C-alpha cells in the first residue's frame, strides 16, 4: 500500500493544478484522506481509476457529512484607553486587556468516498470534496460517470444532505418521498411534531401544526 503522500504526489504529477490537500486523521485507524478541488475532481478520479500503478477501480462507500457553522472563541489582547483616577487625579491610560472574541467559521457539506483496488488488492484511499457553504453553493461534480457504484449512494447523499451532484444521470430522492422538503440528515434538521398520534389536532397542537406547515411551505 502506498502512503497518502505518495498518492498525492502521483496525482500532482499527472493532473496539472490538481490542488489536492492532505487531511490527517488523528484516530488509531490512521486513514488519512485527500481533499479534492471540485473543479478537478473528475480528472483526478479518472486518473486514480485508470492509472496502472494505483488502479483504484472499486468505489466502496460514498457518504455525506454536515459540518455546521463553528463559533470559535479566541483570546485576543486588546489595547484600550481607560480613564482612571490615580492619586485623586483623573488620567487616561492605555491598558492591555485580554478579551474573548468570537469568530464564525462557515460550515460546509462534505462528500466522502472510500476507494479500494480490486486489481491490486489495495486500499482504502479516502477522498473528500467540500461545498462552499451549506445554503446556496451546494454543488459538486458527480463521480458516477467514473464509478457507477456511486449512482445510488450519491442519490442518497442528495436526498439526506442536499448536496447537488452535477452530472449525475438520475438525481432524484431515493429514500424519502418525492414531495418531501428538507434534508433529514442535516444537523440542524427539525423533526416534525408527532401530530398523527394526537386523536384530533386542536388547540395547542393545531397551532403548532399550522406553524410548522407554514414554515415548511
Amino acid at each position, binding site marked *: 500500500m502506498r502512503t497518502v503522500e505518495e498518492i498525492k504526489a502521483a496525482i500532482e504529477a499527472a493532473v496539472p493544478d490538481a490542488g489536492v490537500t492532505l487531511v490527517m486523521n488523528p*484516530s488509531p*485507524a490512521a486513514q488519512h484522506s485527500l481533499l479534492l478541488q471540485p473543479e478537478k475532481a473528475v480528472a483526478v478520479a479518472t486518473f486514480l481509476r485508470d492509472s496502472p500503478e494505483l488502479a483504484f477501480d472499486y468505489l466502496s*462507500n460514498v457518504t455525506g457529512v454536515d459540518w455546521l457553522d463553528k463559533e470559535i472563541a479566541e483570546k485576543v489582547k486588546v489595547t484600550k484607553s481607560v480613564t482612571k483616577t490615580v492619586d485623586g487625579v483623573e488620567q487616561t491610560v492605555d491598558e492591555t486587556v485580554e478579551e474573548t472574541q468570537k469568530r464564525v467559521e462557515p460550515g460546509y457539506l462534505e462528500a466522502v468516498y*472510500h476507494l479500494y483496488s480490486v486489481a491490486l488488492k489495495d486500499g482504502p484511499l479516502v477522498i473528500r470534496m467540500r461545498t462552499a457553504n451549506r445554503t446556496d453553493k451546494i454543488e459538486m461534480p458527480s463521480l458516477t460517470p467514473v464509478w*457507477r457504484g456511486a449512482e*445510488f*449512494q450519491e442519490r442518497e447523499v442528495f436526498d439526506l444532505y442536499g448536496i447537488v451532484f452535477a452530472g449525475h444521470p438520475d438525481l432524484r430522492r431515493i429514500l424519502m418521498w418525492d414531495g418531501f422538503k428538507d434534508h*433529514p440528515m442535516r444537523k440542524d434538521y427539525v423533526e416534525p411534531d408527532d401530530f398523527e398520534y394526537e386523536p384530533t389536532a386542536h388547540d395547542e397542537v393545531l397551532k403548532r401544526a399550522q406553524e410548522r406547515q407554514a414554515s415548511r411551505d
Partner: protein
Amino acid sequence: MSLLDTKPEHIEGWNRPPVIEPDGEGELLEVAMGPHHPSTHGVFRMDVALDGERVVRLKPVFGYLHRNHEKIAEGTTYLASMPYTDRLDYFCSLSNNWAYALAVEKLVGQEVPERAQYIRVILAELTRIQNHASTIGFLLQEMGASGTPLMYAFREREKILDLFESLTGSRMMCNYMRFGGCRVDVSGPWLAATRKVVAGLPAFVDEFEALLSSNEILMARCQGVGVLKPALAVNASISGPMLRASGVNYDIRKVDHYGIYDRFKFRVPLGDHGDIYDRYMVRVLEMRESIGILNQALKEIPGGPIMDPKAKLRGFRPKAGEAYGRIEAPKGELGFYLISDGSPNPYRYRVRPPSLINLTVLEDMCLGQNVADVVLIFGSVDIVLGEVDR
C-alpha cells in the same frame, strides 16, 4: 411520473444501462412490481415497462422501510446502536454486529482477545451458511418450486438459530458483540452442540445439491439469464457472492484479513458466466468452504477471556477522528464509517449497505429479458429490505 412518459436517452459511457428499443408493434405496458409483490422479500418496487414480455425499462423504487437508522444512531451512544444493527439485515444480525464492532475498534485502536475472535468467526460462518441456504430456498420458491426447497433450507437454518438462541438469548436479534470482545462466553455444551450441527451440514449441502444443481428446470431458467460482466461488476461496486459469480476474485476475508481469517484455510469460489446459475453455485460452494472454516475454528478455539480487560463500556468516548471498517458479510461488503468528535455519540455514523449497492445493476441485468426472469434475477441478488432502506 409514469415510466412510459420518459424516453431513455443514451448517455455516453460504457457503464450505463443499454437503451432497448421496443419492436414498434403494439403499445408499451407499465407494471409496478411491488411494493407487495411476494418476490420482493418485503416492500420494494420495480417499475417495469414491458414490450410484450420483454423488459425495456426498469426503475427500482426504495424507501418504504426507511427509518433513518443513521440519524437515530447519531443521537445515541456508540453501544446503544449495537442492538439496532441487528435490524439492518435481520437474517445476519451477528455479521452486522461484527462489522460495527470492527469499525469502532478501528476508531479507538481496541484489541480483541483470541477466544472472542474465534467465537466471532464461528458465529459469522454459521450466519453465512444459514443465509446462503435460505437465499437459495427463496430463489427456488420464486422459480415455482413452491415450499419444498425452502423448507429444506429452513430445517437447517432452524438448527443454527437454536444455537444462536441458546448462546445469545435471541434467534435473530442477537446483539452479541461488544467493542473489544463478546457479551457472554460460549460453554462446553454449546460447543459440543455446534460441532454436532456442523457435522450434519455437509450431508445437507450434498442433499441440496443432489436435488438442485443438475435439475433441468433450474438450469433452463438460470443459465445465461441475468448476466453481469466482471468489468461492470467492479465499476458498479458490486460485492459478495454476486461479484465472485462474475469471476472477480475479491473476498474481503482474504484481502483485509480482518479478525483472524488469515489462520484458516479456505478457497474462494468463482463463477465464469456471471449468470443466475453461477450465483447459485457460488453460494453452494461458499457454504462448503464455511463448513471447512467452522471445523478448523471449532478445533482450535482456545480458552481465555472474551473481553479485553482494558475495553471501556461505560463512559465510552473515542478521541476525535474517523474510521471505516468493513467485513465480508453474507450479502457482500458491509461497512461502517464513523466520525467521532470526542463526544459519547458518533458525529457521523454511516452504514455501507451491500443490498442497496448490489441493486445498482439490476436494470442492466434485466433489460431485454422476459418479465418472468426479472423475479429470478432479483432473487439472485439476495437483498434484505431492512438493509436497503435502513
